[in-house]
């Protein structure tokens, strides 16, 4: 493999790892916020345990979202400085706004939520998880603005050798963005719904003590997955018009993109069917044990579909970095050596893959342990008595 292939593969692998965690974050955040709001209203132990249990899973998943995101952000500067050189005046704006007015707040509020148990006033504590949710969605918005610019350089104008920002509004109303953003957000809800269903199904199948908690969660997961799959498929098909308007041959002669698209659609419909059946049976689903292994079995599918969707979108852009403006080959950092890209490839992909595996092991362990021993929001140990 040459330098370009390695740089592309590095971006594809770190990006895919990043999105596996981000997509669950986007889906779980509103669900945890709803549970926490319910707990603040009722004060019941059941609601408290549900919030802490799902919150712990959310936070553990979030850890890898952050560290993979850090590498993503700096990778543009390391390996793709040709992109910044050519279009930094346009592409840099949404990335800057994402860090300043979305992620900066998201990270700060998440710290307040994690460590705010037994410390912040009840409703302010609830407010922090809603702020985390809102800023996570804002983050997704700005990242999709940046990605949509690569698909279709709206709002920019050629100025000699480079692109300049011409119309900021056009950047935000990019036809590549309008249906893709809700598609991504509903993919998040789909993943969140299936994960919540699946973990609940595990406990109901094993007949663990928290029957009521997991019956409720299962129903919440079913409704979320139902809404998510309906929207993700709807917005997915709604993209064809605007996308083929600006990228007419996106899936022509690009076999990997076409494969990704086809498989994603297949899985999308399958999940839609599963969610539809479950929503009809939602009243009995917690009791019908034969359903539970089936639910657990399909849970990897929405994650796979999410990655396939990105393969379709990004492979369908090749060989362009910015559609019909800049090729990927011209976007790579000039003078990037084989040694450099090999070292960073091994360092980033190696470390992040190991950490991702460790994180999933941890999430599975948290799920299996159940809602009785949750570190998040534990009562603080009493302060040691003063001794003389």
């Amino acid at each position, binding site marked *: 493999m040459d330098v370009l292939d390695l740089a592309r593969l590095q971006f594809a692998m770190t990006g895919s790892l990043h999105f596996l965690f981000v997509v669950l974050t986007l889906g779980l955040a509103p669900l945890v916020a709803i549970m926490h709001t319910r707990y603040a209203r009722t004060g019941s132990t059941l609601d408290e345990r549900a919030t802490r249990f799902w919150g712990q899973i959310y936070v553990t998943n979030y850890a890898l979202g952050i560290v993979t995101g850090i590498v993503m952000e700096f990778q543009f500067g390391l390996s793709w400085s040709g992109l910044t050189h050519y279009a*930094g005046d346009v592409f840099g*704006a949404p990335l800057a706004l994402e860090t300043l007015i979305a992620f900066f707040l998201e990270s700060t509020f998440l*710290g307040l939520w994690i*460590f705010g148990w037994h410390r912040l006033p009840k409703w302010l504590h609830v407010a922090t998880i809603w702020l985390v949710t809102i800023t996570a969605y804002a983050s997704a918005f700005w990242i999709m603005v940046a990605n949509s610019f690569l698909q279709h350089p709206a709002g920019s104008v050629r100025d000699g050798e480079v692109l300049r920002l011409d119309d*900021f509004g056009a950047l935000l109303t990019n036809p590549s963005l309008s249906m893709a953003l809700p598609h991504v957000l509903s993919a998040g809800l789909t993943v969140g719904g299936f994960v919540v269903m699946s973990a609940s199904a595990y406990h109901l199948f094993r007949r663990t003590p928290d029957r009521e908690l997991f019956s409720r969660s299962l129903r919440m997961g079913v409704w979320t997955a139902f809404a998510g799959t309906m929207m993700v498929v709807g917005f997915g098909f709604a993209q064809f018009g605007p996308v083929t308007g600006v990228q007419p041959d996106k899936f022509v002669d690009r076999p990997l993109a076409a494969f990704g698209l086809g498989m994603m659609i297949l899985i999308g419909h399958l999940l839609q069917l599963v969610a539809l059946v479950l929503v009809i049976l939602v009243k009995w689903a917690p009791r019908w044990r034969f359903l539970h292994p089936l639910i657990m079995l399909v849970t990897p599918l929405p994650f796979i579909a999410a990655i396939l969707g990105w393969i379709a979108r990004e492979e369908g852009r090749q060989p362009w970095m910015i559609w019909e403006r800049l090729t990927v080959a011209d976007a790579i950092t000039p003078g990037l050596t084989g040694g*450099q890209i090999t070292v960073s490839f091994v360092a980033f992909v190696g470390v992040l893959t190991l950490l991702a595996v460790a994180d999933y092991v941890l999430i599975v362990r948290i799920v299996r342990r159940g809602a009785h021993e949750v570190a998040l929001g534990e009562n603080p140990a009493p302060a040691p008595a003063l001794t003389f």
Partner: protein
Amino acid sequence: MDILWFGVLALLLIGYFTLEGFDLGVGMLLPLTPDRDRAIGAIGPFVLANEVWLIAVAGVLFGAFPACENVLSANYEAVVLLLVSWVLRDAGLWFRRRLFTRAFWEWTIAVASFGVCLAWGLLLAGLGGFSVPFGLLYGLLVAALFVMHGRRFLDWRLTGGGSLLVTGALAAVPAIVPLVGTAGAVVANAAPSANLTVLTFMVLPFVPVLAGAQIWVWRAFGKGPVPAYF
């Protein structure tokens, strides 16, 4: 406008050194700290709010000074070291109570925090065209200042004495020197004023929220019992 945005860049980088400086300092001190739970509990609630200053630095570099972004590829190895160390330090915090042994992750945090300092030395020295040995020495200086700041922070947080201002200001010095040295070149490479106007209009309404959220963290976690999540 370009000077205003250079001010934002400088403020964010200085803020990162001052704030994340004590997290990294406490990290490096872990092998010498008898009560590691309390030390990590002291920095825990601040880490997410502190490290994000550097992500904002990178964002401002992309948005307001894209022509300067080649400092990253020009210092490729230093940036890779910075990122890998940062990732491992974070992983150490998240996993310490949960996977393998605590000692494994505590050593990871300590070594990775030191790696971040060395990477900063190499990167900042690289900006001025200095050699690698000088960069490593500069990194040792960064590490020493952060350790001092970290010790001061632990005293302040756990026993409630004194102030963080002096060590905080000292921790920022390694960032201030190159900022002063490169100010002219950075400002000359600012994005067109139309871009900066858009960024200003978008960010300005959020400034009180950004500041408020940071102040809230300090008010909520500056005193009282030490939480035990990390």
